[in-house]
């Protein structure tokens, strides 16, 4: 049963994934994500959030260990 679900998902996503957005007639197209400043900004923002979370969690664990020692 699980196999059938996997195959259905695969067949449904395959044509979507294979759709090519590149236009060979010189029309305007969206910049690729590695050319997009918005993408870089998005990644840096999330990375900043992850680092902040890590620093907060690490500090909390350090303080808790010192208090229990």
């Amino acid at each position, binding site marked *: 049963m699980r196999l059938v679900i*996997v195959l259905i998902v*695969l067949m449904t996503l395959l044509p979507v994934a294979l759709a090519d957005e590149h236009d060979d007639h010189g029309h305007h197209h969206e910049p690729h994500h590695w050319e997009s400043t918005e993408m870089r900004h*998005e990644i840096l923002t999330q990375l900043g959030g992850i680092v902040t979370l890590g620093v907060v969690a690490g500090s909390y664990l350090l303080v808790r260990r010192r208090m229990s020692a």
Partner: protein
Amino acid sequence: MRRALFALMKLSFLEAVRRQILHVMVLLSLVVIAIAGTVSFFDLGVQVKIVKDTGMVMILLAGSLSVVFLISGALFQDVEQRIIYPVLARPIPRGLYLLARYLGALAAVYVGMTLMAVTLIALLWVHLHYVSGLAVVAIAFTYLEVALVGAMAMLLSTFFTPAMTATLTLFLYLLGSLKMGYLHHLAERNTGFAKWVITAVSAVLPNMEAFRFKDALVHDLSVPASYLVLVAIYGICYSATCIALSIWNFGRREV
């Protein structure tokens, strides 16, 4: 502790490679890649693009689906079948056990993905008599994307049942893939509470599109090295955060 980690990883790996779902996904993908590479209706340039496109899509789809289905039920089954109790009765931290389960399953998926990657590279070699570095980079970032999907599945598996975990992970994966286009556009079109919710969800979701360099490979475009480094750091940090949160949640719940 390192010996315990490797021993548990080995057990997890051996259990994962025996799962039928992995064999079916890998076999299906190899057949599709091989067909794309050998059936020639087009001229060489178009044929090569089809091989690259199909190969990258199949590696990503097979890897993502395999890792979701392998990891989503791993912890739940261990608890239900009471396999986890004798392991935790030894002085093995729960976090170590969870990490070993994740890395073992991921290693099994990577073996399958490596078979597909080798097939793709062999086909490119047959057609072009060379393999660009970008092919290796694009495949490497696919591995990283699958690791991130696996980490998300592991995090959700500490909260939900296997079926819900698999469904939610695939849903979040899809949303993460549409984040820059669809969700941002949706946030711009809405106001008030709806906009706030969409923005909050978008801020937390991983950016799956960042790991995909299929277009660069297919159309022989160059990608800045600084961007590759940034995305690699992002993928590793996000996966590590998901695993850390999984360890935290698994540690505080009763088994």
